[in-house]
């Protein structure tokens, strides 16, 4: 027999853990039609019955205030096309704060479908000295109340049994006691919803008086002690800063060896292809187009996986809410909110997981704003460009009389520019296009608990698969296009010339569409101090900025430059320093030019993968277009000013 069950509950109650315990890995994760809220479906068999499980987004109330809650309401009432109305509703209730959780239960009871209450976090509640009389609670509510300790899967069997039993029940009766409380609201002069809310809590207070009891010695739990440190004005901020710093740096350190591994794998594949496929266009397509392009994307997988691992652990244990609490005031100042903090911080490693992490922001406006400014946080792909240009063209002198070196200052400034511009953009947008009534920042600080391994693993797996699938398909296409533009038309070489030499490769590039495009846009980039070669490299970097150094290497006749190799980088630096404008002796790369290139890269949206993810997360093509346009415009303007002012100041 088939049964459809919905899992409803407040956020942070362990719904996902329960889902995993019952149904394992979800059979389907997609967006609900028309919104960016994720739909999570699973299935499992129990005693010859097939049970379909819908994990609804966390909700505090069925008076929907966010897209998440609206989806929950729609699914429960069977109003979403393609999703059948659940036969039974399981409300996951956090035993550590029964009172507030019962509010949602009171609303669920009114729907008319059989309801089951699953009490989770019972171990945490018991350690806090909280006792709940389940039989009495069940009597009051008129539905079964089951005790679960999901990590050890205690009670799961009973729950599954109860689900099947519920299908034999005719429906849910609204408890008389609740009805009478609600009836009293008719005479209130408050708005209906408010009066009802108060009435529901009146009913809840009556219940909890009878059902809840506390141990004689209700001492402060470990969680309370941790909290007093973590939300302490000074200590809390220090711990917070250290935590963020370690996460941020470990993303680089931990990911590094893994990235090297991926890099080697990509090179190995390239080597295989070179030996297996005879020289020619096909080999070039496979090696320089497909493998280089896709390899450039896959190399970020370790960073993404590690980042999501940290975010999942922090979310699971409850720290994320406290981070949002600490950062809120600062972010409100620029038109965002505390919940934007982790997504923005993550974007310093890579904007893609950062933008995906913005799902935790329920407020649509805040979420969109966060997604729009996230790419301005200088990601790790920009670092090689900064490092190369800083070491090549910024004089290695000390600042004033201190030990601080100028190149380091310039490097830090590039990061700072991204942050400042993001703050300004957010500020302006929040006062103009995104102006709206301030959304309440009502955030629960959940009790401390151990993150569940199954849930964490699931989040990492989801993120990795999603990244590979989505970014990988488009970036593959774009890589091939860029390869084609750079390889055709085939170069007209002098008789007897060897096409493999660096010089000939450079010439080939010049004659290609890409090279022609570079020369075409030269008037546009001249005000930035660039010549057509730099313009060409910038254009080629639009799909993925990490290719810029390789492209520069080819354009300046070095063949492909591996920026990691000492020799390669050294050679490139020498070549760049020697570069002159066509037909003159004037040097191309002056300090202002280097700075303008860096500023351009700092602010420009040169990452097709990011734009794809923005499109997916906002379920539109409009917002990626907006991001691309405004960032490119800002990049050009920024580069222009830096170059012009720098040249005028004689740097």
């Amino acid at each position, binding site marked *: 027999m088939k049964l459809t069950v919905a899992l409803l509950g407040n956020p942070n109650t362990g719904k996902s853990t329960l889902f995993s315990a019952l149904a394992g890995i979800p059979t389907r994760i997609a967006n609900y039609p028309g919104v960016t809220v994720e739909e999570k479906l699973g299935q499992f068999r129990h005693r010859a019955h097939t049970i379909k499980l819908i994990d609804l987004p966390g909700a505090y*109330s069925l008076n929907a205030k966010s897209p998440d809650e609206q989806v929950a309401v729609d699914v429960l009432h069977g109003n979403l096309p393609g999703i059948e109305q659940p036969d039974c509703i399981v409300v996951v209730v956090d035993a550590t704060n029964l*009172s507030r959780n019962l509010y949602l239960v009171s609303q669920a009871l009114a729907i008319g479908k059989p309801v089951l209450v699953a009490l989770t976090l019972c171990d945490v509640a018991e350690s806090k000295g909280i006792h709940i009389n389940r039989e009495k609670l069940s009597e009051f509510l008129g539905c079964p109340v089951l005790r679960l300790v999901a990590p050890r899967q205690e009670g799961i069997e009973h729950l599954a049994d109860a689900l099947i039993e519920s299908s034999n029940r005719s429906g849910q009766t609204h408890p008389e006691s609740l009805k009478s409380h609600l009836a009293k609201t008719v005479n209130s002069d*408050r708005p209906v919803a408010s009066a009802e809310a108060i009435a529901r809590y009146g009913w809840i207070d009556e219940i909890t008086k009878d059902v809840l009891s506390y141990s004689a010695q209700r001492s402060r739990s470990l969680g309370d002690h941790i909290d007093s440190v973590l939300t302490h*004005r000074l200590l809390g901020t220090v711990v917070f800063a250290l935590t963020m710093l370690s996460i941020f740096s470990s993303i680089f350190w931990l990911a590094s060896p893994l990235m090297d591994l991926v890099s080697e794998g990509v090179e190995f594949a390239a080597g295989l292809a070179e030996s297996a496929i005879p020289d020619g266009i096909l080999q070039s397509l496979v090696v320089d187009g497909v493998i280089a392009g896709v390899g450039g994307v896959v190399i970020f997988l370790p960073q993404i996986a590690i980042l999501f691992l940290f975010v999942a652990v922090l979310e699971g244990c409850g720290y994320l809410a406290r981070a949002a*609490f600490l950062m809120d005031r600062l972010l409100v100042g620029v038109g965002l909110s505390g919940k934007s903090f982790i997504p923005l911080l993550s974007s310093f490693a890579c904007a893609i997981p950062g933008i995906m992490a913005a799902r935790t922001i329920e407020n649509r406006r805040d979420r969109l704003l966060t997604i729009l400014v996230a790419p301005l946080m200088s990601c790790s792909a920009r670092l090689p460009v900064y490092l190369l240009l800083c070491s090549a063209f910024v004089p290695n002198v000390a600042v004033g009389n201190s030990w601080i070196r100028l190149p380091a200052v310039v490097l830090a400034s590039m990061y700072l520019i991204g942050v400042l511009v993001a703050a300004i953009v957010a500020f302006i947008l929040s006062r103009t296009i995104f102006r709206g009534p301030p959304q*309440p920042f009502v955030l629960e*600080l959940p009790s401390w608990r151990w993150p569940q391994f199954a849930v964490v693993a699931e989040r990492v797996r989801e993120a990795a698969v999603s990244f590979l699938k989505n970014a990988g398909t488009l970036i593959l296409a774009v890589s091939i296009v860029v390869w084609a533009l750079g390889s055709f038309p085939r170069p007209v070489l002098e008789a007897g010339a060897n096409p493999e030499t660096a010089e000939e490769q450079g010439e080939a590039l010049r004659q290609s569409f890409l090279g022609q495009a570079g020369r075409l846009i030269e008037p546009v980039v001249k005000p930035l101090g660039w010549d057509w070669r730099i313009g060409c490299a910038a254009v080629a970097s639009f799909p993925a900025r990490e290719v810029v150094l390789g492209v520069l290497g080819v354009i300046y006749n070095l063949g492909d430059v591996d920026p990691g190799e000492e020799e390669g980088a050294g050679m490139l630096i020498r070549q760049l320093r020697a570069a002159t404008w066509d037909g003159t002796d004037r040097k191309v790369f002056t300090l202002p030019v280097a700075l303008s290139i860096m500023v351009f890269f700092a602010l420009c949206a040169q990452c097709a993968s990011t734009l794809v993810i923005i499109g997916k997360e906002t379920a539109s093509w409009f917002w990626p277009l907006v991001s691309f346009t405004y960032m490119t415009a800002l990049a050009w303007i920024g580069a222009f000013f830096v170059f012009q002012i720098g040249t005028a100041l004689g740097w």
Partner: protein
Amino acid sequence: MHSLASIDIGSTTQVVDISGEDSTSLRLLEMGLTPGVEVTVVSAAPLGDPVELELRGYRLSIRRNEAARVVVAN
């Protein structure tokens, strides 16, 4: 009339009412800040905003301008 925004950190008081009739006031009520409930101001973020409350056995954080809507007993 005092509001939650003016209560000292560490003190406990009782909610009298929530002012306003918009979605923010409804949300505050639904989270349990109903007339008669006991609430403690646990702490505030480093810049004074938002504030952390304890009520009905859990911790809630709201901004000062939201806390200003919560009318409490003296």
